[in-house]
Structures are given as C-alpha cells and as structure tokens.
C-alpha cells in the first residue's frame, strides 16, 4: 500500500470511528439500553425514562463523542451514569429521611442488647442449607419478592455489587455513603433478607 493509500485508509477509519448517527439510535440501541436498565432498576417506567434521558443527554454532548469507543459503549456509559444518579438519589433520600432511618431500627429487634439472637429471629434450618437450592425456581421467586421489599437503596447496593461487580469503595463513592454506613446497610439487608426467606419458604 502506498503512503497516499495508507493515509486515506487511516482517514477513512477515523471518519468511521467518529461517525455518530443519532437518527439510528432508537432502532439500533433502544432495546439493548432498555434491557440494560431493566436489569438494574426493575421498574419499566423508570427504565424507559432513563433510556430517553440517555439519548437526549447524548444528543446534547454529541461533540464529546470522539469515536474512541463504539456508539453502543458510549451510550451505555451515559445510561450507567444515569442509573447511578438514580441510585444516589435513593441513597440520599434514605440517609436523610427520618422515617427510613427509623425503619432501619427494626433490625435491632433481631438481636438482644447483649448481641444474642432474639428467640423469634434465630436462624433455623428451612431448606436453605443445600447448595442445590440456588437453582430452585420457587425460592428464587420468594427471594425476588423479598428483594423488592428492601428499601431502594439496599437493592441499589446489591445491584451495583452483584450485577456491575463494583468494589465496596466505588459503591461508597458513587452513592456518597460512608464506609461504616455501607457495612451497616449490607449487614441489615442480609439479615432482613434471610429472615424474609425463612418466613416465606414452605
């Protein structure tokens, strides 16, 4: 390849790289982004809104798309930020709402003052001791319902941890939660989940 051809090829490549065509976004990426959002926020309405916000935000910042990544990766990164913004709102609301904070106190009933399990909340054998149970559809449905009962912020933390595989430090930073609050929430969430499963299974 001559130098001229080579330089034209590079120009073509960079032209392709930089091409963003918003007219095709809905047909190419809307379903993908919607599925991505639903996997993290569950509510269909909220997922729709987030996809819309993503496209509109991307339009406003079209000049910033430098073609270093694909359009899909760029749009997904914007959507992820939007989802984390939503999680952050939940976290802020949770940490500033008196009612929610009072709700957190319910955990105290799981333990006596000396730290012992309260009699009625003691962990008992209820069929969740066998690793094969993880694939049990019925138990998965109960877990889903128990997860939905958790305050939004707790579910947000689980989602960031288990779906996006974020580290504790990143979750704390994104949600603006202190490290000690984070561990307390994780602890309370798991104890509540276990109790909910024990109560509703069989």
């Amino acid at each position: 390849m001559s130098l001229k051809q080579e330089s034209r090829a590079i120009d073509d490549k960079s032209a392709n790289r930089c091409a963003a065509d918003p007219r095709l976004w809905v047909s190419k990426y809307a379903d993908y982004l919607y599925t991505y959002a639903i996997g993290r926020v569950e509510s269909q309405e909220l997922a729709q809104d987030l996809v819309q916000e993503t496209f509109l935000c991307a339009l406003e910042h079209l000049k910033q798309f430098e073609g270093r990544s694909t359009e899909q990766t760029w749009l997904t990164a914007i959507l992820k930020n939007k989802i984390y913004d939503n999680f952050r709102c939940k976290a802020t609301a949770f940490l500033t709402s008196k009612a929610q904070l009072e709700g957190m106190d319910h955990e105290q009933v799981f333990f006596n003052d000396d730290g012992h399990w309260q009699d009625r909340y003691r962990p008992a054998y209820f069929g969740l001791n066998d690793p094969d149970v993880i694939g049990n559809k019925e138990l998965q449905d109960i877990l889903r319902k128990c997860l939905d009962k958790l305050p939004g912020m707790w579910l947000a933390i689980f989602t960031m941890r288990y779906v996006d595989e974020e580290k504790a430090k990143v979750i704390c930073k994104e949600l603006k939660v202190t490290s000690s609050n984070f561990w307390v929430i994780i602890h309370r969430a798991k104890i509540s989940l276990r109790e909910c499963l024990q109560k509703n299974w069989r």
Partner: protein
Amino acid sequence: MTAKRKIVNDCEMATFFIEKSQFTKLTPYEYCYMTFHLAFCSMCRMFQKQSKLITEMTKKVLHLSGKRKLKLDKNFKKQLQAKIEDRL
C-alpha cells in the same frame, strides 16, 4: 463480661463480620473474632452458610432479570425518535 465471653455471646458483631467477609478481606482482628465466635455458635454457623447461599442466589436472580431480552414499547420508540429528530 470478659472479652472472651463477649465475643462468644455477640452474634450481632459476628454476623456483621460474616457479611463484611463476603465483600472484602477482614482485618486479622475481625477474622479472629468471627472464627472464634463461630467455633462456639451453631446458629451463626447456620447463618453464615445460609448467607453465602443467599448471596449466590441474589447474584443469580439479579443476573436473570438482566438477561431477559426486552423490547421498548413501539409508541414510546416513535415518540423518542421524533424527539431526537426535533433536536437535530
């Protein structure tokens, strides 16, 4: 209450470390606290086993909801397309 007795009795703290250990490496003190407590407390041993299974199941349930292939409502897409065209 002696320190040893406190550790044996304090299920709340032990379960806290059980949860923390699933996210990050415990400090030597936290690890010893948890291990010592678990040696004496069958309820927390059961909690630990169940908690790990709940973690695995939660991962599975959350991943399953992300794997569903969903489609946005057609009308919503049309409106969205119009909004984009308007702003171009």
